[in-house]
């Protein structure tokens, strides 16, 4: 009624249907700035303080290079393991009904919930020379504690839920008619998996694997107990940064941390590109 009366020609302003946009967006942005953005910027500034030559000297020092190598190698091993095992685990949890399934499903969250130091301690206790697994493995000539395998083990333990928990919902949501269609068209189980099921879960799987990898690169608490932390042999980058910090070498710590940050960002970028590629058919045409 008032709309008829006003004839000022003022443009109509659409009201948002959902209230609270300004408040909620403002809060999120503020939080992101304080918790994520400012620390990252501070880190970059701290690293930049020392100039490129000094920065390069720090990160290319033999001890730092060794630490990066160890961290990357162990993270790759852990991620390959988790990629396969996590996929299998998600498959089992979604596709089969068996007694204790809920318990198994809940157990999957233990690495998330457990303090990483506790994980590190228990893994060390199990795999050390007088633990449960240590002597058996030693008899087979495999050493875990104080080697890169120990590091990879700790990384795998703490990051496997990332793969399981990203693949699981996608697998659950898959339309069973897709597989039935493949069956009626004559496809055998393995073909159905490789050509119908796997492409559908590929984006989620890639996302899970990269997050697991990024998490492995940054893992600290679980590793320091089992790794032995010998410079050049089992010292990870995060620990080296920590050691530099304890020596009040803030710039050295920041330089190493910055490299880790760069790794993480590149990973995120690759992950997003891969996911975009793997799900190209979804957004197409919308």
């Amino acid at each position: 009624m008032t709309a008829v009366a006003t004839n000022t020609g003022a443009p109509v302003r659409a009201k948002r249907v959902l209230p609270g946009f300004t408040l909620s967006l403002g809060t999120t942005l503020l939080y992101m700035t304080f918790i994520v953005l400012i620390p990252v910027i501070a880190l970059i500034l701290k690293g930049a303080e020392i100039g490129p030559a000094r920065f390069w000297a720090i990160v290319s020092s033999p001890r730092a290079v060794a630490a990066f190598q160890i961290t990357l190698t162990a993270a790759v091993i852990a991620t390959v393991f988790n990629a396969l095992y996590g996929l299998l685990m998600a498959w089992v949890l979604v596709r089969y009904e068996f007694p204790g399934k809920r318990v198994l499903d809940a157990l999957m969250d233990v690495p998330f919930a457990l303090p990483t130091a506790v994980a590190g301690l228990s893994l060390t206790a199990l795999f050390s020379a007088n633990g449960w697994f240590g002597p058996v493995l030693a008899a087979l000539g495999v050493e875990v504690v104080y080697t890169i395998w120990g590091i990879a083990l700790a990384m795998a333990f703490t990051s496997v839920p990332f793969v399981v928990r990203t693949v699981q919902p996608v697998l659950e949501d898959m339309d069973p008619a897709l597989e039935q269609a493949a069956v009626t068209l004559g496809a055998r189980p393995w073909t159905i998996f490789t050509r119908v099921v796997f492409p559908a879960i590929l984006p989620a799987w890639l996302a899970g694997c990269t997050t697991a990898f990024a998490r492995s690169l940054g893992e600290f608490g679980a590793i320091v107990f089992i790794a032995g932390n010998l410079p050049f042999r089992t010292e990870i980058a995060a620990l080296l940064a920590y050691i530099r910090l304890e020596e009040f070498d803030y710039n050295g710590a920041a330089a190493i941390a910055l490299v880790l940050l760069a790794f993480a960002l590149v990973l995120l970028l690759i992950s997003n590109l891969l996911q975009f590629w793997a799900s190209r058919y979804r957004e197409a045409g919308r």
Partner: protein
Amino acid sequence: MSITVSGLTKRFGQTDVLRGIELGVEQGELVALLGPSGSGKTTLLKIIAGLEWPDAGQLDVNGQDWLRLAAQERRIGFVFQNYALFPHMTVRDNLAFGLTVRPRAERPGRAVIAAKVDELLHFLQIVDLADRYPTQLSGGQRQRVALGRALAIEPNVLLLDEPFGALDAAIRRDLRRWLRGVHEATGSTTIFVTHDQEEAFELADRVVVMGAGRIEQIGHADAIHDHPASPFVARFMGATVELPVTLHAGRADGSGLDLSALERRALPDGPARLFVRPQDIAPRPDPAAPWRIASRTSNGAQLRLVLRHPDLGEAEADVPRRASAAEALTPDAAVRLTIEAGTIFPTDRRPGAASAEPVPLTSHKETAR
């Protein structure tokens, strides 16, 4: 391929989904399985496809026992209700799927597959969609691709589950005609499931009406419409008004009813039930009659009258609004009901018998959506 189904039963938990299905389908025939949801029609279709397994019974196709064959070995074309196209494959790859997954020894060469796919694209009139992904297609286009994917393997039998269920009315009509054409061109034995009578009768050579896990009637449109074999079919076909009558020497008589238009029926004397469609009831003003018009609503073309009888409850009648007699049909008028067509079934005294079960009412209006 001729299909013979006998004694098929299937139970999900406590529910009998199929209770002894006997059905024969001839080579090249187009058969509709028609029934309300929960009648077991989709389960029957999936058993023929090998996607479900019966608890007992036989399924022979051209004399071969199909219950010994896995779904992959039956070579059937199955079109799913929601199409189930592979979302990460283009239309071309979807069509080729059934050919490319064959074991190496039987698999046609790449060029042969490509030629076959091209031929299908032309046949389905979707050449310009070849390189699109399913998300880029409309419902009708997806339906065509789904059918093409099923036809690509040159199936023995074509099975379609509610093929037009998710489409709007205009596209349905087009696709229905088109599917009929496809069926005639390929000559394949085809069975489709639907809950839409119009669809079933327009498209199929024969219609199999199913209710609560049983086949209630098999026949052509007119026969099922005029001579329903059971109260279930009568109700399902729209005869939703049920009136008690008394039979005497094959003639029915009921309170305030003029039943002279009905044929004589060879039924025993005694109480019986009459099933009538609302449009087959013609109320005529008659001051002495027991029926009263309780309400009158119009949808433009038709008047829907709710009629009340002091002892028998309510009945509904549809009369053309512009008919000359319609003016006198005002609320509270006393009327006598002339029944123009209807079916009489003897009153079933057995409690829990099939005909006494509640049946979901389905009419043209509801199913046409």
